[in-house]
């Protein structure tokens, strides 16, 4: 499924690198520990977190993640958004909790994989 579809269905607010919305999402990961994401998050995933400092951009870039969803209605600082734009990392925000966001992402990915298989 495309990141754009996911963003639409979850009413996510895209705050950096719109052009990344055309990328495919192959999975998801929830963690606020950056080393855990480096160790365990698969390429092409969306990463759900409440961390919003500049290091998340490097993590997403180095791990080839499709995007980051910042939960809990947190706002990002201009510096972080600039960095994300420069490194072409798509960041989206949501007022929902990590639990709700992950549940919806899981369901949508599950459904989309099911429909791809039946085609």
């Amino acid at each position, binding site marked *: 499924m495309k990141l754009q579809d996911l963003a639409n269905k979850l009413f996510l607010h895209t705050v950096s690198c719109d052009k990344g919305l055309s990328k495919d999402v192959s999975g998801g990961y929830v963690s606020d*520990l950056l*080393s855990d994401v480096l160790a365990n998050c698969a390429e092409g995933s969306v990463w759900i977190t409440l961390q919003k400092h500049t*290091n998340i*951009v490097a993590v997403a870039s*180095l791990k080839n993640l499709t995007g980051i969803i910042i939960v809990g209605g947190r706002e990002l600082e201009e510096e972080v958004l600039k960095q994300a734009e420069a490194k072409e990392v798509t960041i989206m925000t949501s007022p929902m909790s990590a639990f709700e966001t992950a549940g919806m992402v899981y369901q949508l990915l599950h459904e989309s994989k099911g429909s791809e298989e039946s085609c």
Partner: protein
Amino acid sequence: MNRTIEGSFQLIGGDFTNAGESSMQLKQKLTEIELGKDIIKKAAVVAFEAEMNVIIHAAAGWLRYYITKQELRIVIEDMGPGIADIELAMKEGYSTAPEWVKNMGWGAGMGMANMKRNCDEMKVDSVVGEGTTIDIIINLNNS
């Protein structure tokens, strides 16, 4: 490729704003010379964890890389507090990072283990009060 391709990046302790920059540049370089996806993935994790260790714990350091036909070697040398007990530092979950660094999601005691898991050889040398050198080799032939 018979010659060695090499390069280095300077790391500044406490510079969280530019953390990851060296690793991203290294990843870019490895992508340019087409080292292979799995190698690049491993190197990105190794380099970033090493870079973060320097930024969190040391005053300054260097990340150097050497690429030959057989291997990618990454050497991280810092002027830092040093590691008193290397075996303990390698243990998953052990960290001496300050609380505010932990609040950023670093300092979970996973970094050294992440580095070890993503390389073929890892050597840690440290002198308390002087600094730490981590020498890492990723073999290029068995990917």
